[in-house]
């Protein structure tokens, strides 16, 4: 029962939502908006679980003083600090502070701008280095497939480098690659993915695939 009933719930809510898509009337519209809110609200409450999990994993290491436990303490402190300033300290307007916490100059927003954002953008920009090292490491003409990958990548990259007459041919080739084989591959992948997704969804809704729902 602890497994069958939830799977029945998936079946009923899944079929219901699939049918709802074809019904334009007002009650169906209400149900759709309401159901989407269910998803949002469940997600909000689940965040509590997430924060608890993050705290627990790090706290165990702090408690046992495993090597590098200081870093784990930094994680916990960072999280607690943001929660405290974001929910209690900064808004300073009691229980219903609205969007006041978005005001710049608060501790909350300063932490966002000067601690979170720099690290996040640097992580993103590391891609410039990684894209070069991945190209160096992976683009070896070992097989025909690898050679095709390598040659097209070079053709596309050469667009940016002026090489006189070669550029003219290269430009044409690059454009052709983008509008013919590239387009064809995208469409085929999307259609295949679409079928795969629906098949997976049907397997879940019909209860054929139930490995995700635990055991009794």
């Amino acid at each position: 029962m602890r497994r069958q009933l939830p799977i029945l719930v998936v079946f009923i809510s899944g079929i219901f939502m699939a049918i709802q898509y074809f019904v334009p009337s007002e009650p169906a519209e209400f149900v759709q908006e309401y159901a989407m809110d269910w998803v949002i609200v469940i997600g909000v409450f689940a965040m509590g679980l997430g924060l608890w999990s993050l705290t627990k994993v790090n706290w165990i290491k702090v408690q046992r003083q495993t090597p590098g436990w200081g870093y784990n303490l930094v994680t916990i402190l960072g999280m607690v600090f943001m929660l405290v300033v974001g929910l209690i300290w900064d808004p300073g307007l009691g229980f219903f502070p609205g969007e006041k916490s978005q005001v710049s100059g608060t501790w909350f927003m300063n932490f966002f701008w000067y601690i979170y954002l720099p690290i996040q953008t640097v992580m993103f920009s590391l891609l410039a280095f990684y894209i070069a090292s991945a190209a160096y490491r992976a683009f070896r003409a070992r097989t025909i497939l690898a050679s095709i990958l390598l040659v097209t990548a070079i053709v596309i990259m050469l667009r940016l480098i002026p090489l006189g007459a070669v550029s003219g041919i290269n430009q044409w080739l690059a454009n052709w690659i983008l509008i013919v084989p590239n387009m064809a591959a995208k469409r085929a992948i999307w259609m295949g993915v679409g079928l795969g997704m629906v098949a997976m969804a049907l397997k879940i809704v019909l209860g054929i695939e139930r490995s995700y729902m635990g055991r009794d």
Partner: protein
Amino acid sequence: MSLVDFMWMSIGALLTLFTFSYLYKDNPFYKFAEHLVVGVSAGYFAVLLYYSSFMPKVIDTVFRPIEWKYFILAFKQIKPEYLLAALKGSQWWYLVPGILGVMMWTRFSRKLSWISRFSLAFYMGIGIGASIPLTLQNYVLKHLTSTIQPVNFTSLTGIWRLLIVILVFCTLVYFFFSREHKGAFGASAKVGIWVLMIAFGAGFGLTVMGRVALLAERVIFLRDYWVELKYFLYMLFKYGMLL
């Protein structure tokens, strides 16, 4: 730029360098930045979720419209009609997802954690069910109709369209699972995987530019900071001389 802003910008610049240092190898500075950003971002996101979802979807729908005056009276004087008056503006049906949300917390207990499966079941069922028709529409039918185009042999456009149809055909053949890739079928599948590789090579080559631009942006950030820092040091030096 005020001194406070300068201090915050210094922290940002320092953390930028800490994170870049990871390129050389893992080190304590990177470890610090990494652990800090995990904690700060988790807290940030939770606060964001609280204001953007919990407040409007739970507090504003269910609790805020309640007339607490009547609510208290209803219990003090034991008059149920006051309760109705108190709840009049409240969209109490939003309590249902709220309860499902609270049910997620049964996961804190090992014995009761199975109760949370109902919340998970609703969450997944709603999402999956809604995506079945949408996926067929937006992934399959849409791309099928945009591939079906009039072809001809008199213009380049017409020929390219025909070629696209052929290549889509071959690529889809590659994705067949229950047939051995042999003979003509195998040949089309082979063309299919070539097409895929061309597309992947193109995708890779196209992305380099955007990534390099991101890095350039970070360099500009550091350069701007350097200008500020020079100015700050200059001022410090000047006032130091005065003293």
